[in-house]
C-alpha cells in the first residue's frame, strides 16, 4: 500500500519534470545572438485571469511587433512557465531558466511572494526582472535590487489614489475588509495613511481568511460600523464575492465600496449591475484613447478578452527591454538597466514613464469609477476616468524610500 502511494507520489513529481525536458528540447543553445524572455506567471490558479495566458500572449505580441518594426539582427524567443503561486516553484524555474536556457529577462511574475524570491535569484545570476504583476512595495524598498524593475502598479499607488480622492470628496469615514495576510495588511495600512493624511477617519476593520467562501458576516460588520466608505483590501475571488454579497445585503445603498486591488477582470466577471459606482485605481484602461484602443483590439482578437493592466504592461515592458538591448548593443544586465533608466518610456501604456533608481517605473495612474449599465456603450466599456493621477503623486516619493540603493 505504502509503496503504491510512493509510486504515485513519484509519478506526480515527474510530470512537471517531463514538461521541462520538452521545454529544453526546444532550444538549449545560448548564443550572443539570442535574447530570451521568460514569462513566469500563474497559469491556472486564482490570478490566472489577471496575468496567465494573457501575459504570455502580450509578450509574444510585443516580440512579433518588435521584429516587424525594428528588424533586429538578433533572435528573440519567449518561454513561459506556471509558478502555481509558490515561491519555491517560481524561483527554481527561474534558476533553471538562467542556468541552462539562457533566459535574459523574466516578466509578469505576479504574486508578491514569488516576486520577492525571483528578485533574489535574478540579482544573484545578474539578469533582469521586469515585474508587471506583483503588488508589494517591498520590491522597490526593503527587497530592491539593481536588477529589478517594478513596472505597472504597487500597493502604494493603488491605495493612494482612492484614499485621497474619495476622502476629499466627502467619504471621510472608512471601514476595511482586509484579507488576513501580508498583502491585505499592507494595503490597509497604506490606504489608512492616505485617508488620515487627508483628514479622514478609520472606524475599524475586519480581517477575513484568504479564499473565504462567505462574506455576508464580514459585510454586516462593515454595515454596522456606519462608515461612509468600505475599503476592500483583498483581491481576486475574495473581492468578487465581497462585492456580490455587499449588493445582496443592500450595503451599496448607503455606503460606498472602494476596491483597493480591483481590475477590469473583476468588473467583467461581476457585470455592471453589481459593480456600478465603485471607485478604484487602475494602471491602464483599454478605452482611454485611440492608441490604447488600437492595441487592445488587436490583443482582443488573439486573447478574446480585453487586456488587464498586467497584460498591457507586459507588452510595454518587453518592448522597452528589447529597445534597450538594441540601443545598448548587449544583453549585459547592468548596461541594459542603465539604458532603460536613461530612456523615458513612451508608448500606448505609459507616457513619459521614468525608471527610478529604486526600480520603480513611474507613470500616470487612473482613478476610475464603474459606469452604470445604461452608460456602457459596448462590451468592456466599463469606466469613467475620474482623474489622471500624475506618476509623481501616484507613487511613493523617493524621500520615503527604504531601498538601500537610493543615495540620500
Amino acid at each position, binding site marked *: 500500500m505504502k509503496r503504491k502511494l510512493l509510486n504515485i507520489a513519484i509519478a506526480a513529481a515527474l510530470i512537471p519534470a517531463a514538461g521541462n525536458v520538452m521545454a529544453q528540447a526546444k532550444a538549449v543553445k545560448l548564443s550572443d545572438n539570442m535574447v530570451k524572455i521568460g514569462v513566469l506567471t500563474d497559469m491556472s490558479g486564482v490570478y490566472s485571469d489577471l496575468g496567465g495566458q494573457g501575459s504570455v500572449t502580450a509578450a509574444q505580441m510585443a516580440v512579433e511587433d518588435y521584429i516587424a518594426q525594428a528588424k533586429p539582427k538578433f533572435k528573440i524567443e519567449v518561454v513561459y512557465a506556471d509558478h502555481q503561486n509558490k515561491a519555491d516553484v517560481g524561483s527554481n524555474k527561474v534558476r533553471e531558466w538562467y542556468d541552462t536556457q539562457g533566459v535574459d529577462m523574466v516578466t509578469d511574475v505576479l504574486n508578491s511572494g514569488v516576486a520577492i524570491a525571483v528578485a533574489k535569484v535574478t540579482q544573484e545570476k545578474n539578469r533582469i526582472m521586469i515585474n508587471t504583476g506583483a503588488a508589494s512595495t517591498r520590491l522597490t524598498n526593503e527587497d530592491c535590487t539593481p536588477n529589478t524593475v517594478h513596472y505597472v502598479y504597487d500597493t502604494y499607488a493603488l491605495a493612494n489614489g482612492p484614499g485621497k480622492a474619495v476622502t476629499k470628496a466627502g467619504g471621510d469615514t472608512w471601514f476595511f475588509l482586509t484579507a488576513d495576510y501580508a498583502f491585505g495588511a499592507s494595503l490597509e495600512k497604506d490606504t489608512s495613511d492616505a485617508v488620515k493624511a487627508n483628514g479622514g477617519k478609520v472606524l475599524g476593520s475586519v480581517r477575513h481568511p484568504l479564499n473565504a467562501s462567505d462574506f455576508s*458576516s464580514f459585510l454586516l460588520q462593515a454595515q454596522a460600523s456606519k462608515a461612509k466608505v468600505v475599503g476592500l483590501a483583498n483581491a481576486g475571488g475574495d473581492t468578487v464575492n465581497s462585492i*456580490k454579497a455587499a449588493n445582496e445585503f443592500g450595503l451599496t445603498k448607503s455606503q460606498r465600496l472602494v476596491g483597493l486591488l480591483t481590475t477590469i477582470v473583476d468588473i467583467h466577471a461581476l457585470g455592471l449591475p453589481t459593480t456600478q459606482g465603485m471607485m478604484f485605481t487602475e494602471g491602464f484602461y483599454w478605452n482611454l484613447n485611440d492608441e490604447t484602443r488600437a492595441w487592445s483590439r488587436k490583443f482582443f482578437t488573439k486573447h478574446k478578452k480585453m487586456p488587464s493592466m498586467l497584460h498591457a504592461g507586459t507588452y510595454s515592458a518587453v518592448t522597452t527591454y528589447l529597445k534597450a538591448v538594441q540601443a545598448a548593443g548587449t544583453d549585459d544586465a547592468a548596461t541594459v538597466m542603465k539604458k532603460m533608466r536613461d530612456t523615458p518610456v513612451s508608448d500606448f501604456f505609459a507616457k513619459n514613464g521614468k525608471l527610478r533608481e529604486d526600480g520603480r517605473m513611474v507613470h500616470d495612474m487612473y482613478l476610475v469609477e464603474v459606469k452604470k449599465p445604461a452608460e456602457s456603450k459596448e462590451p468592456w466599456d466599463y469606466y469613467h476616468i475620474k482623474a489622471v493621477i500624475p506618476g509623481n503623486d501616484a507613487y511613493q516619493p523617493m524621500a520615503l524610500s527604504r531601498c538601500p540603493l537610493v543615495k540620500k
Partner: protein
Amino acid sequence: MTEIFGIPIQALMGQLMLGLVSGSFYAMLSLGLAVIFGMLNIINFAHGALYMMGAFLAWMGLEYLGIGYWPSLALAPLAVGVFGVVIERSMLQWLYKLDHLYGLLLTFGLALVIEGLFTNMYGVSGQPYTIPEELSGAFNLGFMFLPKYRAWVIVASLAVCFLTWFVIEKTRLGAYLRAATENPKLTQAFGINVPLMVMLTYGFGAALAGFAGVLAAPAIQVSSLMGSNLIIVVFAVVVIGGMGSILGSILTGLGLGVIEGLTKVFYPEASSTVVFIIMAIVLMIRPAGLFGKEK
C-alpha cells in the same frame, strides 16, 4: 441596547442567522458525503467538483439555453446525478472491495480533472448568476436585513435534508438501502438488486451536491474553484458528525455554520480554523464522531 461580550444582541442575532445560511450548505454537502460513505464506503473527494458542476450547469442553462432558476433547480441536480451514475458504473464500482484509499485517490483525481476543465474553459474569475426576480429584495427582521434569497436557502436545504433523512430512515426503500449496507450478500440473496441501489445512491449523493451548487450560484460567484474552497470544511463536518451518519451530518452542518458565524464576530481571523479545532477536540473525545457508532 443589551450587549453580550461587548457585541450588541441584534448584531449577534444577525450573525446567527447568517451562520444558519452557511450551515445549510454544509449540511447539504455533508449529507451527500455521508450517504455515499455510509452505503458505498467511498470517501468522495469529487463532491466539491460536483457542487461546482451544479452551479455551472445552472449558469450554462441560463446563458446558452435560457433555462431559468426554478427549472435549473431540478434539471441541474438531475444532470449531475446522471454524471455521478456514469462515474459509479464506469470507475468506482471496481474499487469497492479495495482499501478506502483507492476510492479517495480516484475521486480526488476526478475532482482535479473536472476543475481543470472548467478553469480552462471559463477562467477563474467566474460568472455572475443573478438572483431570481421572486427572491430578490429582503426581509426586515427588525434585528437585521435578511435578503430573501438567503432565507430561501435555509428553507430549501432544510426541506431537502428532512426528505433525505425521511426516505433513508423511515421508508421501505430506505430499509433496503440500509440492509444492503449492513450485509450486501444476504440482501442480494433476498432478491434485492444491490448494485442498482448502490449506483442510485451515488447518483443521489452527486445530485445533492449539484442541488447545493444551484442554490449557491446566485449567492456567490460561479467559479471553478468554488468547490475546493468549501470541500475541506465539509469533510471536517462529516468527521465531526460521524462518518456515514445521516442525522449527524445534518445537525453538525447547521451547528458548525452557526459556530463559524459567531467566530466571525468575536475573532474573525480564526473563522477558517475553528471548525478544525472542534474536529480535533471531537476526535480526541469521541473518535467515531458525535453521532457515529464505533464499529
